């Protein structure tokens, strides 16, 4: 590669990064424009959801949740809160990323820029929202720690949130990139996604713990003599693994076990590689299909 070409590449990369930053800023700052509460809305939504789930699943149905392994906490709203926020981040990032190409059709057909900038910036802005929610949650956990456990122990494990956040981002980005181009070829995917995300939410154990699944597996084995590997299937779900990791850190005040980390790394890398391959293949002629 010649000096000039290298120079040009570097220039292109700089321009792309600048564009990525500006687009992400646009997503973030335009999201709550002209609302009286502004960014607070990004907290009100999960709070409302947590309240509803706490009443329905905690108070009425009384889903059993094991106490936090290190923290010994038995606060259902906090337990479900971690799940709601983490699941919200996964599902919102994927739908934002998925809609990013269709939503910017005008831009795609009129200007050239590296197309991946669109899903990446959409995911980044959702992850930004997620990060602020995590920060609020962390603050609450520090207070809860003082109150119930006798110290801000959660801060010891909080740095683990950074690699976990990066893995989450890689995972959702891969899926978002794949769906963002696929949804242009098949618009049905947009509608299908709303169903899939519902099913996926329940399958990820946002409002019940693995204990319930284990009970069910045992019951089926005893009643019908069927050995269904329900727990294994449940834990094959990457979103469940992510939720487990977030709960380990924020609720149990513990380090997620190594097999959780391995599963997360495999899922994230796999998703990113597949997403990027499909995206690069399909995005080239995207303008003609829009």
């Amino acid at each position, binding site marked *: 590669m010649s000096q000039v070409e290298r120079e040009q590449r570097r220039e292109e990369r700089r321009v792309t990064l600048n564009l990525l930053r500006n687009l992400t800023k646009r997503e973030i700052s335009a999201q709550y424009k002209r609302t009286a509460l502004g960014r607070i809305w990004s907290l009100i939504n999960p709070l409302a959801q947590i309240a509803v789930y706490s009443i329905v699943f905690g108070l009425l149905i009384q889903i059993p949740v094991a106490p936090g392994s290190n923290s010994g906490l038995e606060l259902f709203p906090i337990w479900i809160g971690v799940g709601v926020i983490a699941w919200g981040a996964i599902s919102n990032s994927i739908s934002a990323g998925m809609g990013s190409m269709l939503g910017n059709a*005008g831009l795609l057909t009129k200007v*050239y820029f590296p197309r991946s900038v669109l899903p990446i910036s959409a995911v980044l802005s959702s992850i930004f929202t997620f990060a602020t929610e995590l920060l609020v949650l962390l603050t609450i956990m520090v207070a809860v720690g003082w109150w119930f456990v006798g110290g801000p122990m959660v801060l010891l494990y909080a740095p683990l949130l950074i690699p976990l956040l990066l893995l989450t981002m890689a995972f959702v980005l891969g899926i978002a990139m794949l769906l963002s181009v696929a949804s242009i070829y098949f618009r049905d995917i947009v509608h299908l996604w709303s169903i899939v995300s519902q099913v996926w939410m329940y399958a990820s154990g946002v409002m019940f713990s693995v204990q319930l699944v284990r009970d069910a597996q045992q019951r089926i084995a005893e009643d019908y003599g069927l050995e269904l590997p329900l727990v294994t299937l449940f834990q094959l779900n990457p979103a469940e693994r992510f939720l487990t990791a977030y709960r380990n850190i924020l609720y149990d005040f513990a380090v997620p076990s190594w097999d959780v980390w391995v599963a997360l790394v495999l899922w994230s890398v796999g998703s990113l590689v597949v997403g990027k391959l499909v995206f690069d293949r399909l995005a080239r002629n995207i303008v003609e299909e829009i």
Partner: protein
Amino acid sequence: MTAAVDVQHVSKSFRVYRDRNQSIKATLLTGRRAVYDRFQALDDVTFEVPEGSTFGLLGRNGSGKSTLLKCMARILNPNSGTITTRGRVAAMLEVGSGFHPELSGRENVYLNGSILGMSRAEIDSKFDQIVDFSGVERFIDQPVKNYSSGMYVRLGFAVSIHVEPDVLLVDEVLAVGDMDFQEKCMEKFAQFRREGRTVVVVSHGIEQMRNFCDHAAWLDNGVLQDVGNASAIVDQYADSGHAVTAGPGGGVRFGTGEVKFTQLGLVDPSGEVVNEVRAGEPATIRLWYEASERIERPVFGAGLHTVEGVHLWELQGRDSGFVPDAIEAGAGTIDVRVDHLPLAPGSYSISATVQDHSTTHMFDSLQHAARFNVLGGGFRTSGGMLALSGRLENLRQH
């Protein structure tokens, strides 16, 4: 001379779906995505755009010139062939396309600038120039959704033109804003040329191309016809562009056909078609048209010829001060009224044109599509083509 843009054997085809299905179900049922034909938009096009030139791409609608421009801008990918560009390329295909309505003008300048490839520092240093050029200083901190369409376009244009690329690709956007603004744009383009930058422009406006460009390429149905000196190419294109076809009433027509005349004729005050009128009497020429789409500010015109082909008179909407805001798709009529027809008895033919507002794009030109006879009347004539309101009088003998 080195090439700023080197187009080598570029071909591009599009899928034209006969029965477009975008559902997974249909795909699974038929076992394939959709039935489509291939439309060859560009067929083995090869030429070079010399560095520092202002290069025009000419051709009729659908000739592939915009496709070629989009390939140069890397928005579309050629199926085969290569396009090599030297230096920074910026495309001005639709100004303000990256604007976010909820964000302020200021935020959008930064956003749009970065979409077009400017760095933050670069936008910082040019920000005042951009705002000054656009003339929207007072509203720069307002959300752009409150802008008038003129302000919107001017701000978008101002950002695009301050990218200062080595190669600027422009698609039919020379006609934005008012006269003052257009003048500013032309000055900016002139400055571009002085600085040795390359401009590639697509336009229908033949005269504009002749004045504006020094080189040109002419495409027809995706095939390169000729490339070279602009005025020579424009002449060739203009000759060929008037490929005429037979129209109604024995007339001949050319044009792109978004609006077509279906009939021309004289009508009497009750609206009945007549083919006779007396010299000096009022006459109403009616043009029946059919538009296949909504057309903004069309310029209608009508003209009279003798049967021998002498052009006697022509009047266009712009000169007459009558340009409708828009005509909708569908049929309609428009009248050209003459208070006293000053023509000598004989046979005459009617022609009509309809163009876009800049009168650079001919939708339809229907020539000699109706004949009428002028009979002797109040305006007397003893010879010649005209019958004027004149008389002999005032004999004096000395």
